[in-house]
């Protein structure tokens, strides 16, 4: 699992949108081989969608051959209700991009036969070849979609009764009145999400911290259904600093150092989008070993070149996203790290890819410092 920690929800949203953009572009979808995307609703996804719309308007991504499946929908809420998930998706995403209406799949919470509707949905997913990338969030009780605590980890799309905590959390969209919140919803199952080829969870805010900790530091458990990503071969969590508040310091440092290691030792050019390392170009194992310094001590020194405030990256970096791959202005000396080679290779392939990088592109864009968080490398910049 990759855990990408960014400074705040804005940075998390940008990272996610950018990742989706790059995944779609790298996939090069066609009519016969479309890119199938699973999409959530919620306040963090709103900002992700805003960025995606922005990328589309700039011509940096096309949704022509993208197919989407939504995660869930309230039961019994009229589709035209402003809080229905159909309205939400239309308002925030579908109305603005070139996604074809026939390629959009939403659960119908007003279907005559809800069970048949769920069945139809699962079949449709199979028909289009399964989901390539499923975006999702996490509830404060650790649920994914509406798979409340106690949901089977193999479950499929079905009707669920919403947990009290979820109803409370959603009341803010219904004028603060819990009585107006629908109590039933159609949701993809935990199994449905697991069946996707990649899962990306967006987790921000201190109120999600406990859930995140339960889901990645403790066992796979049906009371915290997101924990099932531990079993997924290609899972990524993008979170902000606040969401890490309940994680062990060791965990946070570990994942942050991975990004740093990748940046310094391995080099961006050797890491694929999904994080695998195929070969190490420009990397000489005969050079003397020199340990990587403790990231917390390093915040000022080793990372001089690439500390830039993430929140500025949106404005400054838009154009330079693709350029920065080739830009080797970051002056970290690669010869320093070779001794680490053995250690590097032993690490889990997937975890290594956590760093994308504080692309030099972003470092030159804005020389401002971060506010002393643990590893500026991980915090900075547009990773791609």
């Amino acid at each position, binding site marked *: 699992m990759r855990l990408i920690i960014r400074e705040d929800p804005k940075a998390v949203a940008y990272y996610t949108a950018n990742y989706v953009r790059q995944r779609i572009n790298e996939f090069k979808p066609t009519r016969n081989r479309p890119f199938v995307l699973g999409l959530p609703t919620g306040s963090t996804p709103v900002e992700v969608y805003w960025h995606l719309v922005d990328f589309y308007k700039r011509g940096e991504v096309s949704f022509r051959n993208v197919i989407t499946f939504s995660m869930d929908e309230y039961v019994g809420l009229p*589709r*035209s209700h402003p809080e229905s998930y*159909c*309205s939400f998706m*239309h308002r925030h995403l579908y*109305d603005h991009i070139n996604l*074809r*209406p026939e390629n959009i799949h*939403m659960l119908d919470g007003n279907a005559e036969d809800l069970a048949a509707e769920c069945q139809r949905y699962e079949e449709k997913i199979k028909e289009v070849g399964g989901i390539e990338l499923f975006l999702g969030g996490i509830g404060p009780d650790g649920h994914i979609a509406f798979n409340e605590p106690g949901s089977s980890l193999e479950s499929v799309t079905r009707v669920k009764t919403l947990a009290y905590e979820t109803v409370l959390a959603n009341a803010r969209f219904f004028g603060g009145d819990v009585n107006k919140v629908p109590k039933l919803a159609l949701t993809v199952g935990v199994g449905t999400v697991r069946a996707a080829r990649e899962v990306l969870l967006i987790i921000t805010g201190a109120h999600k911290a406990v859930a995140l900790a339960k889901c990645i530091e403790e066992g796979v458990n049906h009371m915290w259904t997101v924990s099932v990503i531990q079993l997924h071969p290609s899972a990524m969590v993008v979170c902000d600093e606040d969401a890490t508040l309940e994680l062990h310091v060791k965990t946070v440092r570990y994942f942050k150092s991975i990004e740093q290691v990748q940046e310094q030792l391995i080099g961006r050019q050797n890491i694929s989008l999904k994080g695998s390392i195929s070969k190490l170009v420009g990397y000489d194992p005969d050079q003397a070993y020199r340990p990587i310094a403790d990231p917390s001590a390093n915040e000022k020194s080793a990372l001089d070149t690439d500390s830039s405030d993430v929140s500025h990256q949106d404005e400054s970096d838009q154009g330079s996203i693709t350029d920065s791959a080739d830009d080797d202005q970051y002056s970290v000396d690669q010869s320093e790290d070779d001794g680490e080679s053995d250690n590097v290779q032993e690490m889990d392939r997937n975890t290594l890819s956590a760093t994308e990088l504080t692309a030099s592109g972003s470092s030159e864009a804005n020389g401002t410092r971060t506010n002393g968080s643990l590893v500026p490398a991980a915090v900075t910049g547009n990773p791609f």
Partner: protein
Amino acid sequence: MPRISSPITQFFNCRILKNHQLVEDYLYVQDGKIIDPEKMFWDAKRKPDIRIDCKGGIVSPGYIDVQINGAYGYDFSNDTDIIEEAASNISKGLLLQGCTAYCPTTVSSRPEVYHRVLKHLGPRDGSIQNGAAILGAHVEGPFISPQKKGAHELETLRTAKNGIADFDECYGLDNLRRYVSYMTVAPEVEGVLDSIPKLIEATGINISSGHSNATTAQSSQALKRGANMITHLFNAMHAFHQRDPGIIGLLGSSESETRPFYGIICDGIHVHPHSVMIAYYAHPKGACLVTDAMSAQCLPDGYYKLGEMDVDVTSGHVYIKGTNTIAGSIITMAECVRNFIKFTGASKVEALENATLHPAQMLGIEHKKGNLIHGADADILILDDNLHVQRVFVAGIEATKENIKFSEKV
């Protein structure tokens, strides 16, 4: 009802007047109406076919002018023999100015004039063929006060001693029912107050107080009986006096539901800009911008006829020939809107609503005019930030000099 297969037009890159605000959003039109795109999107899987780039401009409903006597040399009261030609040319000319709906106004006239012209001034949809929509005639007088006749001809004025029968004799009740949107009367004229509720019931028209010396008490009576509008506030009425504010005093009534709408001419000539501001802030929700334009609108300076009177036009002013009495104006709705902001410092939203929503509300048609809600007629303006009209759409189709041909009266 929009048909599933008709093309959908989307206005984008704009700020739309919606829910009393300017919001960045899209506007969707199909079959001459504003539609909710989500139904088309989810049910018919349709995306827009025609996309109109508003270049960051403001999208507003088309202007509605409920007080206009003529333009381009034509006059609704005078050109009785060529009334169809007059209505046709004025409708087209107004459309290009950004006024997409209006009430052709007749000054006090003899019964034969009404019987001849009213049937040609009845409600008619706006379109590229017709020009601006006609909402029904506004019959201003002859049941008005001789002391406040303004430019109206004294001989045509009358009382309603015989109640509603006099109205029937003058206009024909059937004509009122079919062709007239509202009528201006003076509440103090004999027989008028009692006739107001009967007229409303018999014909369904709206009643407006104007050309009157009525006291506040009398005006209040008229309002209670259903007169929900005031014709060109300040003009041709008893001036504001601190102990008897007359019709103007209705704006200061303590419960806001009992305050009427009021037309106000913002050419800076009929009403002093400061008076506009005072009236507006006394009762913002009732303001209806009107032009009270006469036949010389959009014509060069010179000598013209209004009703049965002769007038002189000199640099934006129109006087009865040889006097200082204002005979009407030659301002356009678009200019009124801009002047209104200058005079009062109000927001663009308020100015636009005074020219669109309030007139529609006064006439009870805000579900289809004066509003950009789903189901309303697609009479749309694209304005720049200074509220200059850039593009005009009537029933969803763009009106340009190429497809709207009209002429001035020769």
